[in-house]
């Protein structure tokens, strides 16, 4: 199932999980030790992050390791930056339009 990556980072616990595994890949146990929430709650967050493609699971021997998918995260930032650029561009033009309106009317 594909999920909206925005939903993935909307939750503060999930952001904390991402910042931890961004530093190093972690097993579910190692990760859960950093949180007061139940292991179950953490694994639910991981499930959502995996569905959003923000976290990748890799097996090393018998252990699962969670990895941070930085590429997906950059997509979100890139998208917002592009959106900002589009609006800045529009509004600079709107400033000019408004300036002309003002001159015409005064």
């Amino acid at each position, binding site marked *: 199932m*594909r*999920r*909206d*990556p*925005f*939903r993935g*980072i*909307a*939750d*503060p616990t999930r*952001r*904390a999980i*991402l*910042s*931890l595994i*961004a530093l190093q890949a972690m097993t579910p146990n190692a990760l859960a030790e950093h949180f007061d929430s139940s292991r179950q709650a953490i694994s639910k967050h991981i499930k959502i992050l995996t569905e959003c493609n923000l976290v990748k699971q890799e097996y090393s021997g018998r252990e699962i390791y969670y990895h941070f998918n*930085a590429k997906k*995260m*950059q*997509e*979100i*930032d*890139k*998208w*917002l*930056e*592009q*959106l*900002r*650029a*589009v*609006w*800045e*561009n*529009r*509004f*600079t*033009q*709107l*400033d*000019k*339009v*408004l*300036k002309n*309106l*003002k001159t015409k*009317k005064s």
Partner: protein
Amino acid sequence: MIAQKQTQVTKDLANKKVLVIREFDAPLDQVWEAWTQSELLDLWWAPKPWKAETKSMDFREGGTWLYCMVGPDGPGSWCRADFQTIIPHKSFTGLDAFCDESGNLNKDFPVMHWQVDFSKTGAGTKVRVEITYSSVADLEKILELGFEEGFTSALGNLDELLASTPK
């Protein structure tokens, strides 16, 4: 020369919303005109190097603005805005979608809901734009479309985000 006002872009991720806020150095009625009259919209609505060209404009509740985004290589995509509610000089809401020349909806592209609010400030007018994407799938599509457009973008926010996230 007037210093350029800053555009605030914030996201309300949980609700699939993006919020854009900007102040303009002009009286409210002029800003309202610039947002609601097609002759004026054509002058600024399309980000460079595109130009918006209006085919028809009917600014009333239930009315439609049909326009084309014309790029350096000729006509690009057709878009339509369907106005839902209008409170003169205060706010308007509507749907924004891609379509063909006759206004038939292109269902391959997401539909966005818009709410634009205007308010007086000390020196000018504040405009607040709230864009809501109707579904999760739409947001993903917008994400993908964003790359194709290929606007220049600054990366590096990731570091910031990671630095500000509680450890």
